[in-house]
């Protein structure tokens, strides 16, 4: 449960929204992502100053102590402008993992660095696809109390801009998570189709790693679920934004002396899309609430949100280009930014097919 009251959450959201409006509008996206690091460090610093980077950090570690619902609300706002940043990797996924481990010193140092905006984290399953539903390809071995990692983690989100990498590896006692300094690993920067994401392949060759103590698969799964809720909310917000922009265009664009939104073919497309938009928003919120409140169906709803939001975003942003017509066929128009980001969302944490399969399993297990 969150330590924030509804009013406090709203104030946080308002603050974040203002910051994005002033400093990270959609108009600024192209120039920001054209830079090597693909995010605006000064905005990142501001997030730190406003305390937003410690949203998910517990109060006892001097954080805000937010929960999945607070995260959902923030990410919906971020999604509306396709806010490019390592927020989800660093301030959510890494924070959740570090908080769950027992390495007190590491935890304390990392969390305060994250809160201060001084350290960027990447987090990886260590799979060959980037999917968290595929198996890790890394192995970890221990000799005289130090662990070393071997293998390649592919399609690692934020790896090229990370200072530290948290990565899963197989050990003799199962899957465990390790912390590696990015400078110790070999990070290959990948050129991406969606300019707003940052991806790399990371090779580990006997790299020294610190194991996260007492962090079992259930704890990793919980941190992943929180991250997935954040990403689903980001997608839902983006879906909503491009849809609103499209409906607005349908009202203001005239052809044959009438708004094109008066044509039934386009009206009906919009009506069908509205179901997608609202479903994405609803399910990302419901999954967040279930996770925040420890409901037994939380995992089910997170799986559902993962593929439903990805698919809605894909379909709505694709239709948005068609509904805009020629103007959206130009680079200058924003529609393709949403469309590209939706396309990327098909693979970043796992495919919709994988989450659908996982979702069905939760029903089977419940029965």
């Amino acid at each position, binding site marked *: 449960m969150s330590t924030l009251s509804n009013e406090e959450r709203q104030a946080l959201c308002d603050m974040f929204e203002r910051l994005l409006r002033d400093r990270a509008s959609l108009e600024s996206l192209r120039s920001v992502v054209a830079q090597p690091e693909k995010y605006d460090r000064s905005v990142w610093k501001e997030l730190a100053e406003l305390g937003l980077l410690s949203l998910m950090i517990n109060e006892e570690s001097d954080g805000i102590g937010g929960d999945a619902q607070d995260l959902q609300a923030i990410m919906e706002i971020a999604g509306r402008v396709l806010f490019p940043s390592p927020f989800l990797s660093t301030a959510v996924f890494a924070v959740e993992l570090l908080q769950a481990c027992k390495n007190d010193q590491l935890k304390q140092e990392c969390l305060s660095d994250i809160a201060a905006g001084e350290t960027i984290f990447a987090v990886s399953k260590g799979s060959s696809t980037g999917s968290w539903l595929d198996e890790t390809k890394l192995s970890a071995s221990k000799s005289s109390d130090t662990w070393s990692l071997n293998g390649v983690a592919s399609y690692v989100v934020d790896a090229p801009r990370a200072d530290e990498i948290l990565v899963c590896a197989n050990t003799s006692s199962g899957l465990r998570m390790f912390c590696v300094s990015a400078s110790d690993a070999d990070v290959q920067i990948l050129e991406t189709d969606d300019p707003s994401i940052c991806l790399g392949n990371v090779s580990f060759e006997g790299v020294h790693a610190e194991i996260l103590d007492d962090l079992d698969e259930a704890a990793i799964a919980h941190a992943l679920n929180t991250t997935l809720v954040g990403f689903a909310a980001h997608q839902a917000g983006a879906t909503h934004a491009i849809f609103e922009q499209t409906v607005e265009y349908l009202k203001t664009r005239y052809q044959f002396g009438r708004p094109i939104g008066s044509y039934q073919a386009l009206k009906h497309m919009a009506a*069908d899309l509205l179901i997608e938009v609202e479903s994405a928003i609803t399910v990302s919120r419901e999954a967040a609430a279930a996770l925040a409140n420890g409901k037994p169906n939380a995992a089910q709803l997170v799986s559902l949100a993962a593929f439903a939001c990805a698919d809605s975003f894909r379909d709505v942003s694709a239709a948005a280009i068609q509904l805009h017509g020629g103007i959206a066929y130009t680079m200058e128009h924003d529609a393709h930014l949403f469309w590209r980001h939706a396309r990327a969302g098909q693979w970043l944490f796992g495919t919709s097919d994988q989450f659908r399969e996982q*979702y069905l399993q939760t029903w*089977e297990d419940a029965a």
Partner: protein
Amino acid sequence: MTKLVHDGTPEGIHAAVTGWLELNWTTEAERGANASDEGMRAWLTKVRDAGLATPSWPEEWFGLGISARKAGIIEKAFRARKAHGWGRDRFHLGAISVFKMGSEELKREVLPDLLAGPICCLLYSEPNAGSDLAGVRTRAEQDGDEFVVNGQKVWTSNAVEADYGMLLARTNWDVPKHKGLTFFLFPMRQDGVEIRPINQITGESEFNEVFITDARVPARYAIGEVSEGWKSFQTAIAYERLIMAQGGTERRGRQNEPTTPLLIDLARRKNRIDDTSLRQKIAQAIAYRQLNSLNNKRAKAEIAENGASSLMSLGKLAMSRIQHGDARVAAEVLGPEALLSGTPNPDAANASFDAAKAYMNSIGGGTDQIQRNIISERILGLPKDDAVDRDLPFKDVKTG
């Protein structure tokens, strides 16, 4: 005529109605009500007279004059005892329409009866007035203090059981279509009313055609003014939607989240649960249903908070994809077994029934296309189509 005595507090009302039921809803009364029409009528009369049928109405109109929230206490008590007759102020469309829109005279004449038994059917749709309800062509012509009615209605449920029909008929052909309609409380039990069941593609016959030939309705049975029936009709269907929403959400709730989704159960029984690509389709079908159920939940929360939710309008359209989709996946799970039907093949018969029944949602009560018009115009604010027939005298409207 002994109204329930209560002190107006929730606790007081609860105590009073519980006591009243204790006293009156005896084994004997229950047996009587369930045994015959007369027994039921006697019981309903008693409920009506106690003000318990329509507690939210004023005392002079069979009510207790209490708030809707407090009326809920009475419903709850009746439900707990499985007693009949409560909630006619919320669920009896005929009684509500007459009460809200009928003349003083009509109310005095028919309300006592309406609250004590008769059911009302809806005489709205016609073969040539489906999506376009204001285009009805059933003709009502004044003859002294009566109207003579001729025409054909379709998709009427409960026509056989009904004592009255809520009739939308045309009384003026020289004015635009919305302006020449009258809304009647129409007596069904008369010569000139012929009822024929409609055979649906599901094998069911839930609906009827009603052929009306020189039937009569007293002029005073108009609900609202003559030729201003479109307004009354709109009010009535707004109540109807409310009734369906209140009745519907509960049913829908149960239907949406069975412990094990039916498709999983079917796939298990047919040994298809391990088929990878079928699993994707089953999962997506369950997902659409759950997403709709979550949207409904959010709609309810929004209504509780703000009194309204645009999400309410999405459910019916969403349900078409769900139902057609479910039926298709079910048939795929069955494989060639889906070729079969009849009692020896219940799974196949169900799958075929569901596939046909899905059209009930995507066509009945406003087609998917009409729903999309409503959503795009009322929620998204996209412009309406020009209505070519809006300002024409109805007799000049083209009919093909």
